[in-house]
Each structure stands twice: as structure tokens, then as C-alpha cells.
């Protein structure tokens, strides 16, 4: 990137009167159920259409209507799409939180607010734009019942004017959002215009924040991770889906239903090439998935932490009877019910060892919506390849928020159903045994009902290589040792990490999932602000691959950055790393339920590196220091 940008950034920090172009965040504070989502998405897409990198995050309460909700839109010419701690431009629509919302702003921020709230008296160091929403909405929306919804579109119009967003593009975005609903489009377009006109007539621009056209978003899409994963599942040829609603995973299955109905119904017959069942709970969901996989289908379920806990017993059955299963865990804040509408990476440890006895499970961890799409496909192949449950660990931030991404590319390989017994390989195999390790990789050959091959009796109790019931000590040990071999074989097949080793960087970062976006930005901050170089290892799967030790060996200090309290990934690594390597590990933790942001990472790392940093804003629950010691 050009040094001028850095210079510009510097200036922004000193004087906020300078124009700030395509590098600020907007927060819309409203109450949920007030229909502001349409307005927010239109605003988001209109900026995208201007060619400016953008991202949208919704911070919503665990109820249906009437409680405070904050929707944050970040524009970033450098393409940063992680959460930005500071709010630069506030739209205050919620009387209940308006005061606190305004008081926590940094000096120089701008506030569009509902006039009756009289917020302008609260502070001198902000720019205020009062808007009489009710007055404005009446004329454009005769039907009083609809006003509550339409009213929000007015702030889009106001923002368009104030920020310099092309009104035509915003109308285009509106059309996209509302699609066929002609009446709604006209109504909302009217409101847009009303907002724009009012702003034009009333306000003189006093804040520095502007959106200027760029060319950074050509062909980009806006999508939530759950929808992306759903598309991946459909492309993976999933045939059986069993699910039980739970935030934040419900929308994965619900968008999958939508796509399947559209693209997986037999044109000729009108019949479905899939079955999607809303089960009575998570235990039944996984049971159906296991039953379907055992009978040869590609089956999946999606859930969140509480569902993972309930699935423990069945996960052990699938591990031990060696039945494929694909389970999406869209992680939310635990323990227990916790904060159901906040994000976390807190289920890793519980999932890795889910179920009693000696068990280990494969986990895939996407960082982007694109990886939600690809890893959904990997998950089905790996589950069948290794005849075991595969957990895809999303989180609420990835699953439910709006992410900008390149379009997805069509799969370039057929699906891989793993080792199925066939008439052909039966010959080469000689005598078949369901749990016989023929190839030395611990993976046996399987059959399923109706495939015409040799039947067997599957069970969660002790069995020998032939699949017969056995309580013999040696049969048990042989089988358990093979399961370890099989698990180790998977290391060569799970998605490899994405590694960037920076010449003579002494510090390495290890991150995964949504932390990725804050990490990338933080690395720039460290380099640009403190001249600290860092390498980066983005983990994408458990069990770990050889690249891990190579990376650690190449750096003096390695920071593992996670969104949980107990440094769960660090713990999993300690179980496998040599003591020497563990010595190099440090931990950066962010677990307050908000998506991790770059500044928190930067501050935490700098502190651990011995720099002076003033912590500010809400505590993020960062824990620090050597992790090896007692």
C-alpha cells in the first residue's frame, strides 16, 4: 500500500476535521423488530455498489422485539472487515440507549438522531444532525400501520446525502433488497428521497466522513456464513438433513431448505432428491444423521453449544461404530444458555473430546464465508473418508453477519465417498472384515443396507475386526489402537493451514475462524505503528498438521489468538507439542461476546511485548503472559 495512506491515517488521528474517506464505521442504534434490517442492508449494499469495501455486523439481544439492537457498518478502503471498536457515525433511533450511545463516542464523531431525543445537549465535541422522522414519514407513507417500518429508510436517505452515497445506487440496492414487492419499493424509495431532501435542505456537512467511489468490489457478493455453508452442503450432494432450531445455527438449515427446494427438486417428477426433517431435539437430529449415514446417505445437522452437549452420547457411538456424520457448530457464548446472540469460539475443547471414554474428533474451522462454502464440502468427504463425525466450527459472527466476498467457484472435483466395499475391491481384499485395517491407515471398508454387499451388525459395544461382538481384551485393544491410527491418518487430509512467514519476524501469530480478520488488521497496525513484524499461521483444522511445528520453530514468540476464556486451542496444542515448543507460546484472549477487533489484539500483544499501552473501552477479557507456568 502507498505510504501516503499511512500519512493520511496519522493525520486523522491528530485532527478529525480532515476528510476521512472510506475509512470509518457507522452504527445504527434501534430496537429489534422495528424493521430496521432492510434499511441497514440497503445502506450496506449501496456502499458496496460504490466499489468500497464494507462489512456489516448486527449486535442483537436474545429476544424477538423491543430491545436495543446495534447494527454496525464499516467502510474500509484497505478492505478491513473486522469489527472496528470506535464508532465514527451514530444513527440514534432508540430512546432507551441514545444517551449511553452518545456518551461513549469518541470526540469528533457524528450523530444523526430522532429530533425529539434532544441529544445535542449531551456533548459539545460531536457533530449532531437532528431529523424529525415522524414528521417526514407521514406524507410519504399515508398508511399509518406501515410507518414504523418505512421510517427507517429515511435515515438511509439522510446518510446518503451526508456521506455522499449515490442515491441512484441506494435505490438500486433497495430494489435488490425488496425484489418483486413493487408497492414496498415505491414506499421506501419515497422515504429515501424524503431523507435525502431533508438533509440537503437542512444540513451543512460538518463531519469529516465521506464515501467516495472506488473499484474494489467488482463482482463481490454479500452473504452470511450460514448461507454460504448451506450452498456448500448442497454442492456436496447432501441428501439427508435433520435439525433442531437454535440460534445462531437455524439460518444455516433454513437457507439450505430454500436452496434445496429451488435446485434439488427433480424437474421431471417434482420430487425431492433430499429429505430435510425438523427433529424433536438435537439428540434425535444427530441420531437421524447417524442412521442416514449408516444407510449410505450424505447426512448433516447444524446446531450450537447446547446441542453439542446433548449430542455427546451419539458422537461417541459414531466414533466407535465408525459412522460418518457432518455436524455444524455455529458457536455462541456459553457456558449453558450463556449469551445466545453473542459470538465465541468456546466449544473447541468440548468438541475435540466429545463423549465419554477415549474419543477424538475431527474439526474444520472456516474463517471466511468462502471457506464456509468449501469446508462444507470437505466435511462430507472427510466424514466418509474416515467414517467418523466431522465438526465444522463456525461462530455467530461468521454465520449470521454480512460478509463481503468474491463469488464462489464451482467445485472442481467429484465427491469422495471413501472406502466402500465393492465387488471389485472385494477380490483384492480377500476376506472382508468391517473393522479390518487392510491398508494400514486404520480405515476399514464399509458396506451399507441395500448396496448388495455383505451385511454386518453395527454396534456401540465391543467388537472385533470382523464386526462381531467381543469382550476379548486383545480385540478391544487392537480396535482402539486402530482408531488412533485412523485419526492420525486424517492429518494428511484435513485442510492445511494458511501460512505467511515474514522474513526476520520474531513474532508469529496463530489464529483461526473469525479472529482472522482482526489479526490481519492488527498485523498492519503493529507494522505501521510500532514497526513490529509478525508472521501468521491460520489454523483450519484439528487434528494438527506438520506445518504447525515448522511455524513455531521459525519464531521466538508465538501468540495464539482466540475468542474464548480458557485458551482452548492453545490447550489442544499443548497436548501435542514438545515442551520446547510450548515455551514459545503466548495467548491473546477476547471473550466478551463481541467480535474480536484489531485494536484489542494489537494492545494486548504490545503489552505482552513490553510496550506501554493504555487499555480503553469495555474489557475484552484479555488474559496474557507465559502460558506454560503454573
Amino acid at each position, binding site marked *: 500500500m502507498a505510504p501516503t495512506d499511512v500519512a493520511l491515517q496519522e493525520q486523522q488521528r491528530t485532527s478529525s476535521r480532515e476528510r476521512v474517506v472510506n475509512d470509518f464505521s457507522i452504527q445504527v442504534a434501534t430496537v429489534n423488530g422495528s424493521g430496521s434490517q432492510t434499511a441497514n442492508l440497503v445502506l450496506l449494499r449501496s456502499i458496496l455498489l460504490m466499489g468500497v469495501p464494507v462489512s456489516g455486523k448486527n449486535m442483537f439481544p436474545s429476544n424477538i422485539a423491543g430491545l436495543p439492537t446495534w447494527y454496525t457498518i464499516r467502510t474500509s478502503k484497505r478492505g478491513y472487515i473486522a469489527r472496528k471498536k470506535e464508532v465514527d457515525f451514530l444513527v440514534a433511533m432508540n430512546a432507551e440507549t441514545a444517551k449511553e450511545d452518545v456518551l461513549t463516542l469518541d470526540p469528533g464523531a457524528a450523530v444523526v438522531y430522532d429530533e425529539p431525543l434532544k441529544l445535542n445537549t449531551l456533548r459539545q465535541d460531536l457533530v449532531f444532525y437532528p431529523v424529525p422522522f415522524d414528521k417526514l414519514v407521514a406524507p410519504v407513507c399515508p398508511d399509518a400501520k406501515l410507518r414504523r417500518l418505512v421510517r427507517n429508510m429515511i435515515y438511509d436517505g439522510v446518510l446518503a446525502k451526508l456521506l455522499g452515497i449515490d442515491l441512484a445506487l441506494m435505490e438500486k440496492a433497495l430494489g435488490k433488497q425488496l425484489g418483486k414487492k413493487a408497492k414496498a419499493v415505491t414506499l421506501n424509495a419515497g422515504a429515501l428521497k424524503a431523507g435525502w431532501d431533508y438533509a440537503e435542505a437542512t444540513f451543512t456537512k460538518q463531519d469529516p466522513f465521506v464515501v467516495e467511489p472506488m473499484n474494489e468490489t467488482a463482482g463481490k457478493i454479500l452473504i452470511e456464513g450460514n448461507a454460504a455453508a448451506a450452498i456448500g452442503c448442497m454442492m456436496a450432494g447432501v441428501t439427508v438433513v435433520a435439525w433442531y432450531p437454535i440460534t445462531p445455527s437455524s439460518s444455516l438449515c433454513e437457507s439450505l431448505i430454500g436452496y434445496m427446494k429451488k435446485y434439488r427438486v427433480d424437474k421431471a417428477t417434482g420430487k425431492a432428491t433430499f429429505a430435510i426433517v425438523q427433529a424433536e431435539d438435537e439428540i434425535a437430529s444427530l441420531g437421524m444423521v447417524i442412521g442416514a449415514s449408516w444407510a449410505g*446417505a450424505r447426512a448433516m445437522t447444524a446446531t450450537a453449544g447446547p446441542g453439542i452437549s446433548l449430542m455427546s452420547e451419539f458422537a461417541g457411538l459414531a466414533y466407535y461404530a465408525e459412522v460418518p456424520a457432518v455436524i455444524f457448530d455455529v458457536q455462541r457464548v456459553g457456558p449453558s444458555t450463556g449469551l445466545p446472540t453473542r459470538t465465541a469460539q468456546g466449544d473447541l475443547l468440548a468438541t475435540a473430546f466429545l463423549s465419554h471414554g477415549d474419543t477424538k474428533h475431527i474439526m474444520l474451522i472456516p474463517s471466511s464465508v468462502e471457506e464456509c462454502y468449501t469446508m462444507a464440502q470437505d466435511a462430507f468427504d472427510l466424514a466418509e473418508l474416515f467414517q467418523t463425525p466431522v465438526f465444522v466450527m463456525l461462530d455467530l459472527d461468521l454465520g449470521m453477519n454480512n460478509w463481503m466476498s468474491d463469488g464462489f467457484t464451482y467445485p472442481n472435483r467429484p465427491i469422495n465417498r471413501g472406502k466402500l466395499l465393492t465387488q471389485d475391491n472385494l477380490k483384492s481384499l480377500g476376506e472382508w472384515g468391517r473393522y479390518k485395517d487392510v491398508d494400514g491407515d486404520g480405515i476399514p471398508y464399509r458396506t451399507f443396507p441395500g448396496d448388495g454387499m455383505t451385511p454386518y451388525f453395527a454396534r456401540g459395544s465391543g467388537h472385533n475386526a470382523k464386526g462381531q461382538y467381543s469382550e476379548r481384551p486383545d480385540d478391544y485393544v487392537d480396535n482402539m489402537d486402530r482408531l488412533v491410527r485412523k485419526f492420525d491418518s486424517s492429518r494428511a487430509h484435513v485442510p492445511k493451514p494458511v501460512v505467511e512467514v515474514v522474513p526476520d519476524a520474531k513474532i508469529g501469530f496463530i489464529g483461526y475462524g473469525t479472529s482472522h480478520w482482526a489479526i490481519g488488521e492488527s498485523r498492519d497496525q503493529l507494522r505501521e505503528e510500532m514497526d513490529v513484524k509478525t508472521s501468521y499461521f491460520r489454523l483450519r483444522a484439528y487434528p494438527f498438521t506438520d506445518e504447525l511445528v515448522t511455524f513455531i520453530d521459525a519464531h521466538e514468540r508465538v501468540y495464539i489468538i482466540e475468542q474464548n476464556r480458557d485458551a482452548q486451542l492453545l490447550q489442544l496444542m499443548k497436548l501435542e507439542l514438545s515442551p520446547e515448543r510450548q515455551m514459545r507460546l503466548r495467548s491473546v484472549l477476547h471473550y466478551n461476546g463481541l467480535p474480536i477487533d484489531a485494536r484489542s489484539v494489537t494492545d494486548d500483544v504490545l503489552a505482552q511485548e513490553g510496550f506501554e499501552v493504555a487499555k480503553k473501552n469495555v474489557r475484552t477479557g484479555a488474559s496474557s503472559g507465559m502460558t506454560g507456568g503454573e
Partner: protein
Amino acid sequence: MAGKINRIGLEAITYKGGKTTLCAGCGHNAISERIIDAFFEMGVDPRQVIKLSGIGCSSKSPAYFLGGSHGFNTVHGRMPSIGTGAMLANKKLIAIGVSGDGDTGAIGIGQFVHLMRRNLPIIYIIEDNGCYGLTKGQFSPTADLGSKLKTGIVNDLPPIDTCALAIQLGATFVARSFSGDKKQLLSLLKAALSHRGTVMLDVISPCVTFNDHEGSTKSYAYVKEHDDPLEELSFVPFFEDISVDYEPGSTQEVTMHDGSRLFLKKLEEEYDPTDKITALKRLHETARRGEFATGIIYIEPDRDDFLTQLNLVDEPLATLPLSRVRPGPEALEEIMEGLR
């Protein structure tokens, strides 16, 4: 009947399973034998059958019949969900599930309720001995009020009537029998194989080791005493064209999904097993008398089963080729366009 061949050319022996590890005299073993007979006589292809169970002595029994079929001995009380998934994967399979009164009535009652609601095509058998055999004889939720354990402990909770529950929840073929009644049980199993939808078959099956004593209401003696058959059953499979004549009114004829015919010779006036309310009423009355109504309690031969409602393609989902389960590039492009 060794050597005898059924309509698909298989010998009876093909339908046998492994050697039982259950107690000598256990009712469950008798049920396994009837299952073998029924599948043989109906000429069911073992390769199309899946045997499912939960955990318990009863749930061990699928290992002791139909050795030529796939089987899955799952976990305690969760067989219904496994069976549902398997049938979704391959609608052409014939599913027979064996559970126990503990496996179904205690830990499994939730999945049982939802299985019955869905009317999934499966033959669900409860081998009902009123106790937890495999854990050494504690009371199960089907133990009757006042029934006594060997230890002298008396059950003071009302029993769960799995038949009444199944009828109320939507099962379309609900029957009760006794492991000791070979003829009735065999006819019921054959009829079950001709039904499309959930068959819930509660078979009282005494536990000779823990619950066959004086004072138990699930002992051989007690059950023989208190067995109250609703009708005299005769079953004529679709592949045998026999004409049965009976004086009208005395017998009810039911045509099964596969064309087989079931003749219910009334043993008393006016019991109509196609009417839910009559059925429930009857169950409560017999229970009040401390008796067991056996035979076909409720039957609804032609309601759509779960898989039909899902409007699935004719082929098993499990083996659809990639071409049919992965939409083409144009589909993906259309989706992407919608997101730009």
C-alpha cells in the same frame, strides 16, 4: 420346516441369526423365533431388511434373527431416530426395530412419541417385561400398579400404556400380544409386514429371571390368566389367493397396503379397531379390570406414511448419482448473482 423353501426361494435357516445369549426361557427368545417365521413365510428378502435396537436384553435380540440382514444395535432409547434416518436414506428398506419397555418407556419415551407421530414405515416391537432385565430387574415405566418385585418392593406409579400412547399420537397399526401366544403373534407380524406406516407392537414378554414370580403382573402365569384377545385373527398374504368365507357381521375384513387381507373374527359385539376412540376406551376398560387386551387394537391401513409426505424421488437417496445431487454451474452462478 428345514429344507422348505419360501416364495423367493430361500430356506427357513437363512432367516435365523446368531445363538442367543439371553436366559433360557426368556420371552424375548420366543419373539425372535416368531420374527424368523414371519419373515420366512412372507418371503421377505433379508438383504432389504434393517434390524434396529436400543440397549437392553430385548435390544440384544436382533443379533439372534435374520443373520443375513444389516443391523444396528444403537444406544439406549434412541433407536427411533436412527431408524428414521436410515429410512430417509433408503425408502426401499424394510425396518424392524426391537426395544424394551425401559428402552422405550423410560429414557426413550421422547423419541417414541415423535416416531409414532411421524408414522414412519417401521415395525416397532416392544418386548415388554415390566422391568429392566439387563440391569437386574428394576421396575420399568410399564410396570403395573401394585406389581411386586422379588425384593418385595411394590410399584406405586401408574404404568405407561404404550399402545394407548401410540394410538393417540398417530401410529397406524397398534397391537398387543404375548410372547407365549405363537399363533396370534405370528399373524400380527405377518400383517405388520403388509402394512405401510408405523406398526407399534407391544409384546408382553416375561423376564424369567427377575419378573416371573408370584405377585408380578408380567409373569407367564399372570399374563396367561389375564390375556383378553379382542378378536380371532387370520391373515391371508397377497401372494396366496384363498377365499375366506364368514357369516357377515361376525368378521371384519381389512385390506392391507400390499393387498394382503386380514380377517378379524369378533369375539364379542362391536369392537371396531379402525376407530380411535373405541380403541382408547377399550384399552382403559381392560386395564381397569387388570387385564391385557391383545390383538389388533387400532388399524388405519391407508394414511400416508412419513416418507410419502416428504415426496421423495423413487430411488433411494443414499445411492443417487452425483449428477442428481449436485446442481450445475448455472445454478451456482444464479445464486451468486442474487448476492451481488
